[in-house]
């Protein structure tokens, strides 16, 4: 149900991301059984400042393109990787589903068809082959691309309200309900049986 309502914009960055992906299938030729070397140039330069600049540029370009009426492919990623077992495949899907494609609007690394996602998927795959744990892979990604890549942002000063907001609201709501119940309820024996159909 993605982009259900976002269809208003003829071209969202997400679509653009996908469009780019269609041109780049060479990189993902999945019959390659030997792990391909990591891409020489990283899709995002390292460091938060540069990546932010990149992002702004990307968004501006997308916004400008929105007027050009060129719709591009909304293909999704079908990216066959040579997994050795089904468990490994499931682990990979689970891991990349919780990571964000940095150059798309709001798409997981698993679903995205952008170059960035394809290359990063392969790198993650390679790291899994090297026996790295999910934790190590995530740490590597965060070091490289900042926590923006994680769909569950780690607890930090900037995310306190995000993580504790819901419990706080639940607590407040719970207190209100408890007060309401204490004030409004009567012992069961004090409540008269009502005649008639109870509906």
């Amino acid at each position, binding site marked *: *149900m*993605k*982009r*259900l*309502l*976002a*269809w*208003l*914009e003829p071209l969202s*960055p997400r679509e653009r991301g996908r469009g780019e992906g*269609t041109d780049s*299938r060479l990189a*993902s*030729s*999945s*019959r390659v059984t030997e792990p391909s070397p990591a891409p020489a140039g990283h899709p995002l330069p390292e460091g938060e400042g540069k990546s*932010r600049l990149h*992002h702004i540029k990307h*968004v*501006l370009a997308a916004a400008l393109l929105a007027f050009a*009426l*060129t*719709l*591009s492919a*909304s293909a*999704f*990623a*079908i*990216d*066959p990787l040579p997994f050795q077992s089904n468990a490994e495949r499931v682990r990979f899907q689970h891991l990349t*589903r*919780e990571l*964000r494609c940095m150059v798309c*609007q*709001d798409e*997981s690394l698993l*679903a995205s068809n952008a170059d960035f996602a394809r290359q990063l998927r392969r790198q993650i795959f390679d790291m899994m082959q090297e026996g790295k744990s999910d934790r190590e892979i995530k740490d590597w990604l965060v070091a490289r691309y900042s*926590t*923006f*890549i994680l*769909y*569950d*942002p780690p607890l930090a000063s*900037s*995310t306190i309200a*995000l993580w504790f907001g*819901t419990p706080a*609201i*639940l607590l407040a*709501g*719970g207190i209100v309900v408890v007060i309401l*119940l204490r004030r*409004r*309820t*009567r*012992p*069961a024996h004090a*409540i008269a049986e009502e005649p008639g*159909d109870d*509906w």
Partner: protein
Amino acid sequence: MNPELGQLALILALLLAALQCALPIIGAWRGSKPLMATAPTLAIGQLVFIALAYGILTWAFWTNDFSVAYVAQNSNLSLPWFYKLSAVWGAHEGSLLLWMLILNVWSVAIVVFGGKLPEAFFSRVIGVLGFVSFGFLLYMITTSNPFLRLMPAPPNGADLNPVLQDPGLVFHPPLLYMGYVGFSVAFAFAIASLLGGELKSTWVRWSRPWTNAAWAFLTVGIVAGSAWAYYELGWGGWWFWDPVENASFMPWLIGAALIHAQAITDKRDGLRAWTLLLSIFAFAFSLLGTFLVRSGLLTSVHAFAFAPARGVFILVYLAVVVGGSLLLYALRAPKVTGGKSFALASRETMMLVGNLMLTVACAMVMLGTLYPLVGEALNIGRISVGPPYFGPLFLILMTPLVLALPFGPLSHWGKADLKVWRNALIRIVALAVAAGIAGFIVGARTWYELLGVAAATWVIAGVALFAIKRWREAPRGKRYPFEMLGMMLAHFGVGVFIAGAILTRSMSVEQDVSMKPGASVHVGAYDFRFNGVAETPGPNYTAQQGTVVITRNGKPVVTLHPQKRTYVGGQVQTEAAIQAGVFRDLYVSLGDPIGPSTGSGQDVGAWSLRVYDKPFVRWIWGGGVCMMLGGFVVILDKRFRLKRAVEPETVRPTPEPEAPRKLAEGEA
């Protein structure tokens, strides 16, 4: 027909909306019957002009009038005729026009069916709807005009976004809008009663059918969108916690809470202030949902800044509507709520628990959806909030609701019979455990699956026990009134949905493969053999069509034809091929060619494909459809016929300040 006429119709509708907002409300305030009497005429007049504008835009699509910029952007000579009609709401401007059309249809429906409402109350309701309409029309005319000309007219249009060229998307936006706009009725009723200082619970009964209808439409709209994403986007997923989805889910959650709060207010006269507040918030979230998506804010804060006029208008409008409503609420809402008293173990308490969890879930979704935007705007760093945040929190919040759900219907108003609860609890626990064991025998192994099966059984067993109890205890012919039947259907739908959502998630097998013609892959219990790709023409596209033969233990099951289409505008769109079934879907979508299409070599004719075995995925939407049907069935109940509401009853102890409209011909 001339698009400028459409423009003119919009401006006239704006003027009528201004009058519709002002005259009836002033009339109700001053007690002026002539002013109040303008309400029906103005509402009908506005509908006429909006319908005219809508018709003119549709005509422009039908006749390929590419001198209209909006048509040029969203249509094409070779677009099939039904997509030309649906292309009217294929983008921003037209979908606003559709929103307006639906709002006006709802307004006129109130004129038609609400004829027996007290005149002042009726006038205020129509006036509030006029205000909502005015804001939207002003927004449309000033920032999003669908009738702008494009000179010189291009010989052909750019084509409708191929993502939208699908039957699912033809119906999805109108259904969703029916839901969003439908909440405007409960909103208008709430504001009207706050304005009138008339805080009796009768207005709630009148607005209940409208709320149920709105929620049912919203449900089916979300279901249609989810199903569409499943087969059209090719991801095989059905919910992504994407901001755009969340935008429609928030009013749904509040709407579900509102339906139950209204029931308490209607039946027990309690929780009036809470019901008023939820009525305001259901519509506020509908506006937020519409506008979050429309403003481009979700795309990025930068995109928002890119078209500031739209964004600023939206913010101001939201602030006026929501802020104004809440201010009015703060001034006028009843300080002390009345209502019949109840015991701790009662239907009221169960409904309160449900209400609490639904509203907190809505707050959680809002927090997660808006947090990254606010973070970006305040420059505290970019944050991604996605499924690993929403999923677990939603699950936690819904657990108490699911546990309480069977015991709401099994309680009495006022106080529950604890013996009934105890007996029901024993049976429900037994059934849920039995279902878990049965699941284990069939092959469920993870805690997640087993708890999912148990939870679904918990809910469905509760509905079944309630049905049996009614059958035994209620007099024949009065066993299942429509209101109750709707409740049972919707609760049953919740159970079906739980089973679908949880089992699909844990039992699906998904595999991306690259296959040469003749190659096979084994997924789940099935073998998928790829028989190559051939080119197939379509009306406004050419498709690469794959052939995949699915067998199970050597026996043929089905042959699927996934497509990859290239539309006239150059856009590429995949069409997954799905063998749908009650217990599992087999799903194939076509990726990209990997090797050369001809010649010799290892990869000749090879393509990448995604194959899926998705058990129980239909149950997700099946559950949604049950919930929708439940919402609609409730409306059929005779209690909601207005005639009864106007009869004098105990809930309105004070005399009505104004005579009920049409009482003379209606009741005499």
